[in-house]
């Protein structure tokens, strides 16, 4: 059973996620970053739903277990759409919106088909296996896509601070969770580490996005580095 610390982390995390949406509404970029706000709004709703199921049925109940993993898959799909929105923002000036949509949808379909191919021989709880597998695979696809986007930002010499901040924080978030997953698999005895990192990452992401929305304007640009004067 979670103690006061876990409850506090859970509450603060949900409040931070709600704050992202509020800050986005206050500062104006709600529509521009709609998919990011959709992810955060869904995350708040899912947290509330998880709390309701948790208090009624308990941590080890099958109700909470299924609600948790099914809602986790929904959140991962929302995160994928958030990434799709970021791609659209970064590539908006290249006029590649149509190609981008085709690419992202093909990737989504490919991931679902691949996940089905992995689990289709499961005899018991195939749907649950399938949902969890999609969530896992989509997560790793998101990780790769974030790094590809970061490479594109560098290549395109993107200077919009808010976009850079959001993409970098997403990269950190994905990386922490992937590293934590590897750690969990390699060293199952280090429970104090791998049980602590996901909530920490879950709080880091909304804080970074609040910072990006509140601190920077949409047109704020990185100042180019000063040229060094080399004496001849």
């Amino acid at each position, binding site marked *: 059973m979670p103690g006061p610390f876990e409850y506090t982390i859970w509450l603060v995390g949900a409040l931070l996620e709600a704050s992202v949406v509020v800050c986005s509404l206050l500062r104006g970029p709600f529509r521009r970053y709609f998919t990011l706000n959709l992810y955060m709004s869904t995350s708040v709703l899912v947290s509330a739903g998880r709390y309701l199921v948790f208090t009624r049925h308990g941590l080890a109940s099958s109700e909470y277990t299924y609600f948790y993993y099914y809602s986790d898959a929904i959140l991962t799909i929302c995160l994928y759409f958030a990434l799709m929105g970021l791609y659209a923002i970064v590539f908006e000036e290249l006029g590649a919106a149509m190609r981008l949509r085709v690419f992202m949808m093909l*990737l989504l379909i490919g991931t679902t088909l691949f996940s089905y191919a992995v689990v289709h021989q499961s005899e018991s709880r195939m749907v649950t296996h399938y949902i969890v597998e999609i969530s896992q695979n989509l997560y790793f696809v998101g990780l790769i896509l974030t790094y590809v986007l970061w490479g594109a930002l560098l290549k395109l010499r993107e200077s919009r601070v808010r976009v850079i901040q959001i993409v970098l924080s997403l990269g950190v978030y994905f990386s922490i969770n992937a590293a934590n997953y590897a750690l969990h*698999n390699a060293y199952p005895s280090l429970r104090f580490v791998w049980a602590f990192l*996901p909530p920490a990452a879950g709080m880091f992401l909304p804080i970074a996005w609040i910072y990006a929305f509140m601190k920077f304007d949409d047109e704020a640009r990185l100042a180019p580095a000063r040229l060094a004067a080399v004496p001849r």
Partner: protein
Amino acid sequence: MSRISSAIVLAMLVLTGAMGLKTVVTTHGGSSVLVANGTAPVPPTPWKNGTAPVPPTPWKNGTAPVPPTPWNGTAPVPPTPW
């Protein structure tokens, strides 16, 4: 057409990379599940602690008689040559 083809190739590349990364990450792994959304406490994986009964493995509890393995005749087994 070439644009769609390039999108397909890119999608396949990313999918391959992601699944390769997942394989690397889970090399030492058991059956743990990556959960990354939200700060809620994580329940046990559903196929470990569900409520449904676990079916018997098909090769242990069938009704048909178990055939003899082909390399076991009725003759006594000699000792291994080494």
